[in-house]
């Protein structure tokens, strides 16, 4: 029994987007590929129901987010300098990107996931909560903790309105 051709067309069209999402989640090319492959395989198994949704890619992204939180390990670090050598733009921009990526690498998987969902995909707190299988309150606290950690790692001052 073959895999539905409409699934393959969907995967082909969204592969770049999903890989970019996976790379942001994991910070590692190889891990991103593993994550996308596993998520696509799981999506293919439920494709009959998934394809009926308006945005099947949201299902794949949700699977990826949960897989990343559940079992993806962050022990496969990349040499960021080699990765960023290809990045175009002024040196200061590259350094800023490198700083942010190194800071993201220090976050726990759940914190990193909530940051990517909220600030890359621009999902609402409710959407992120559904994807991560947790409450909106947990998303809020994870986001707050992640921003607090990033601020410390990047040497930023705490915001005036303050939080713990």
């Amino acid at each position: 029994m073959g895999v539905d051709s409409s699934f393959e067309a969907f995967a082909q069209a969204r592969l770049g987007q999903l890989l970019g999402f996976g790379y942001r989640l994991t910070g590692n090319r190889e891990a991103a590929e593993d994550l996308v492959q596993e998520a696509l395989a799981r999506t293919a198994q439920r494709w009959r129901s998934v394809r009926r949704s308006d945005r099947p890619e949201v299902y794949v992204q949700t699977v990826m987010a949960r897989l990343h939180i559940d079992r993806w390990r962050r022990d496969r670090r990349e040499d960021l300098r080699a990765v960023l050598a290809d990045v175009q733009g002024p040196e200061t921009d590259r350094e800023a990107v490198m700083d942010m990526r190194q800071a993201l690498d220090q976050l726990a998987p759940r914190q990193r996931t909530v940051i990517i969902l909220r600030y890359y995909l621009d999902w609402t707190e409710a959407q992120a909560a559904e994807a991560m299988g947790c409450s909106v309150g947990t998303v809020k606290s994870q986001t707050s903790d992640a921003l607090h950690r990033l601020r410390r790692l990047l040497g930023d001052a705490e915001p005036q309105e303050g939080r713990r």
Partner: protein
Amino acid sequence: MREDLENRLRDSLDGDAWQITPSRDLIAQASAQVRRTRRRRAGLGSVAAVAAALVAGVAIVKSTGPTPDAPTPNTSAPSPATNEGIVRPGDPVRVQGTEYAPSGRSHEL
């Protein structure tokens, strides 16, 4: 200040540095993974079907009893001289070369 960090996050996450090209055919490998899973499940389904048929067969035999043409089971008492065939509580039981002690533990002979 918080706005600034959030804006920097968005800028960093939107950068081209996150675009990667796959080193292998992920879609083909995902499809192959699905086919393997389906084959495995189909295999397990066959095993389950065979097991269910066996269980059903045993149930039918138990409910109907032996057929009239079947040989009559030997219900005669064991030989009192040797007591062969009698298993008393506490006796070890041998199955295919393995002796099962009354405690439930077993050891190879």
